[in-house]
C-alpha cells in the first residue's frame, strides 16, 4: 500500500511556520513572560521534527542544510563564552547585565546579555534534540 501523506505534508507546510514563529516568540517573551531559551529551543526543534516526519530526511536537508551537531556545539560555545565574556569587564564569571532603551513607536525595550546566554541554550537544545532524533532514525 502506498502511503498517502499529501494532507500531512500540506498541513505541515503551514503549521511549521506557526510553530517556528511561536518558538521564536516564546524565546523572546521569556524575559518578562512565560517562555525562554529551553522552551523556545524545544518548540523550534519540534517544528523541524515535524518537517522530518512529513517529508523525508534528504528533502528537509536540502532546505535546512545545517549540521545540527555543529549547531549544538555552537550553542554550548555561546553559553560558555557569555560567561567568560563577563571576565573581560572585571565582574565575576557569568555575570549578566542589562539596560533599557526607548524606541520610537515600539516603546521601552529591555536589552540584556541574558538573551545571548539564552540563545546559546536554545541553539544547544535544538542541535541536540535533532541530532538525537536524526541519528536514531537514520540507524537502520
Amino acid at each position: 500500500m502506498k502511503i498517502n501523506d499529501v494532507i500531512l505534508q500540506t498541513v505541515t507546510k503551514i503549521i511549521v511556520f506557526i510553530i517556528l514563529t511561536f518558538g521564536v516568540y516564546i524565546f523572546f517573551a521569556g524575559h518578562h513572560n512565560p517562555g525562554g531559551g529551553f522552551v523556545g529551543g524545544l518548540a523550534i526543534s519540534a517544528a523541524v521534527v515535524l518537517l522530518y516526519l512529513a517529508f523525508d530526511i534528504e528533502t528537509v536537508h536540502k532546505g535546512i542544510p545545517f549540521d545540527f551537531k555543529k549547531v549544538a556545539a555552537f550553542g554550548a560555545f555561546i553559553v560558555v563564552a557569555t560567561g567568560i565574556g563577563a571576565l573581560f569587564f572585571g565582574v565575576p564569571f557569568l555575570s549578566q547585565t542589562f539596560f533599557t532603551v526607548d524606541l520610537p513607536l515600539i516603546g521601552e525595550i529591555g536589552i540584556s546579555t541574558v538573551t545571548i546566554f539564552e540563545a546559546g541554550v536554545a541553539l544547544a537544545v535544538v542541535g541536540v534534540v535533532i541530532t538525537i532524533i536524526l541519528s536514531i532514525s537514520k540507524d537502520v
Partner: protein
Amino acid sequence: MITAIFAPLLAAILTPLIHKLSRNRFHVGWFALFVPLTLFIALSRYIPSVADGMQYSHSFQWIPSYNINAALHLDGLSLLFGLLITGIGTLVILYSIFYLSKRESLAHFYVYLLLFMGAMLGLVFSDHILILYFFWELTSISSFLLIAFWYYRTKSRYGAQKSLLITVTGGIAMLTGFIMLYHMTGTFSIREMTALLPDYINHSLFIPALLLILLGAFTKSVQFPFHIWLPDAMEAPTPVSAYLHSATMVKAGIYLIARFTPIFGHEKLWMWSVSIVGLITLLWGAFCAVRQTDLKALLAYSTISQLGLITCLLGIGSAVYAFDFEPDALIFTQAMFVAFFHLFNHSTFKGTLFMVIGIIDHTFGSRDIRKLGGLISFMPATFTIAVIGSFSMAGLPPFNGFLSKEMFFTAMKHVYEWNMFSSEAISALFPVVAWIASIFTFVYCMIIIFQTFFGKYDPEKYDRPPLKLPFGIVIAPAVLSLFIVGIFFMPNVISTYLLNPIMTSLYEPLADAMDLTPRIHAWQGWTLEVWMTIGIVIFGIFLYKSFHYWKKVYNLFPPKRSFDALYNFILERGEKSARSLTKWYMTGSLRNYFSYIFVFFIIAVGGSLIYTQAFSFTLANDAAIRVYEWVIVAVMLVAGIMILFAKSRITAILLNGVLGYSIAALFVIFRAPDLALTQLVVESVTTALFLLCFRFLPEFKLEEPAKKSVQLTNALISVAVGTVFILVALSVNSTHMFESIVYFFENAYELTGSHNIVNAILGDFRAFDTMLEAIVLFLAGLGVFTLIKLKKGREEKNVEDQ
C-alpha cells in the same frame, strides 16, 4: 599574568583553524612558536623588578559564591619556572618545526603542546590550591595526549596510560592533602597558609596532608619508586621528551616541594623524606641509566637521577626550617640555592641532549647504541653540541654542570660535617652515595659520546640510509649549548637576577639578615670537592673501560622482580576484578537496571529524608481542592493503571502521553505557565521520539511471569518509590531546611531587568547551573550520536597494533 596563562590556551584553540586555513602550505609550528616567544620576552621584563624584591599578585573573582577566586602570584620561584617554560618552549617548538614533517597531524601536536604550556604556566602562577590542582591535572592530561601522539603504536599507548595512571593517582592524593590543608587553615591561598600553618603543626591532619602532598610531588617528579613511568613515556616524539619529560613537567613536583617548604618545613619528617627519597632516586636512576642501550631510555633514567639530586638538595635546604632558623643550620640555605641552580642547568643540558638524540634518531632511524657508532664524521656540529651537553651533565669544566656539581658536593659535605640526621652513619651516607651516583653519571655520559660518535660506522646495521636534515634543526640545541658554556663563565648573573629572588621568597624571615646567595666560583683551590671530581673522572674511566666485566651486576635485578612488574601485575589484576564485578551487575536486563535505579533512589532520597529530618508537612495552609483538579487526577489514575494492561506499544505510549499532558494541565491550573509550556513541548517531542524508535523494537509480547519472589520484590520497590515521592512532595512545602528564595522574587527586576522570575533565576542567579546543564545536554547528544554511528560491524583496519 592572566594573559600569560590564557594566551597559550587561546592559541591552542586557534591552531587547528590556522592549520586548516594554511592548507599545509606552511608549517603551523611557526604560528605556535610566536606564543612562547612573546611570553618569554614579556616575562623577561619582570626580571629586574623581581630581582629588586618586587612581587606581583593579581586576583579576580571566578565563582564568588563558592569562594573560588583565581589568585595569581608572581615571585622569584614562579618567574624562574615561567622563564624556563616559555624559553625552553620556544626552542622546542623551533626544533619541532624541523623535526615533525607536514605529514604528521601537526594541528593535534601543537594544540596539545600549547595546552600543556598554558597549564604549566597556570600551575606555577596560581596561588589558589584548587586552581593549582586543576592545572596540575591538566598537565598530566596533556602529557598523556602527547605521549600517545603516535597512538597506533602499542608501546605509545602503554606508556601514555602508565604515566597517566601514576601521575593522576598522585594528583588525587595531593588533592586530598589540599582539602586537609583547607580544613585546617580555612584558606585556599598558599601565601596565607604559609603564615598560618606553623600554628597547626600539632594538628592531627598535618602529617597526613604532608605525606599526601609529597606523594603527588613524587609521582610527578618521578621519584623512586614512582620513576617507572618516565622510561615508557619516551615513546613520545623527541621534542615532547625534551620539553615535558626533562625540562618542565617533571619539575612541577620540584616546584611544589619548594613552594610548600615554608609550610611543611618545620616538621622534620619533611626534611627526612624529601632528602632520602631524593638520594635513593639519584643513585638508582644513575645506576639504571648505565645499562640502557636505547639512548632515550638512558636519558630518561639520567633525568630521574638528576631530579633525585635536586629533590635531595631541596630536602637538605628545608633543614633551615626544621631546625627553626638555628644560626648554625643557616649553612643549608646553600643547598636550596644549588637546587635551583642545578635545576636551571639541568634544563639546559638535558634539553640539548634530547634534541641531539632526536637528530640522530631522525637521521639514522635508530637510537640503539649497539647499532650506532662513528657518527662523528657525519655530523660534526651535532657532535660538538653533544659533547657540551654530556660533559656538562658529567660535571666537567668548563660547563655549567661543573659548577652545580661542585656546589652539590659542598652541600653534601655540610650534611656530614653538621651531622644533620643526628646519626653519623646516615649523615655520612649522603656524600658517599652522591659520589658513587656521580661516578655512574660520568659513565653514562661517556657512553652517550663514545658509543655513538666514535668507533666504526657500519651501514649494514641500519634499516635505511641516513637522511639529510635541514640545518635549522641544530639551532635550538646550539642556543642551549651556548647557555651551558655562558653560565660557566658568568654564573653570578643567573644567581643575582633569577636565583636571589627565589631565595628571599623561600627564606623570608632571613631575607634582611644575611646574604642568601653565595658567590659562585669556578675555582677555589684544591678543595675536597675538586678531589671528588678528580676521583669521579678516574673511577669513571675505569668503570667505563671495564663495563664488560661488571655488567653482570645488573642480572641481580631481573625484570621479573622490578617495579614495572609490580605495576603490570596491579593493572592486570585490577582490570580482571573490575571486569568480573561489572559482569556481575550488568546483566543486560532492563528490569534489573530499573530496580538498581529505584533502589538507589529509595535509599538516597528516602534515607536523606529521614536522616536530615526534613520530613514535615501541614495541610492547614493548603487551598481547597477543586472539582477539575479531581477530574484531572482521576484521568491520570485511570491512564496510569491502563498502561499496565496495554496490549500494544502504541496504546502504552498514548496513555503515557495522557499522563504527561494532564500534568501540563495541572500546571496551568496552578498558574505555572512556564512549567506547563515546557511540559507540553517536551511531551510532544518525546512522543515523536518514541514513535521513531518503534520500528527497531521487536514484536510486542507480554513477558512470561517472573518468579513469585521476584514479583514480590518488584512490587515492594515500586510501592516504596511511590511512597518516597509522595513524602518528598509533601515536605517540599515546608521551608525549614533551606532559606526561602523570596529574595530572587523581590529583586528580580532591579537586579536583572526581567519580569519573569523563573528565567531570571535560570539565566542569571543560577546561570552556572544552566551553563553546565547546556553543556551536559550537548555532551549527551554527542554521546548518542557516537554510540549509534560507531557501533560494531564496521570493517576495522588493524592499524591499532604496531
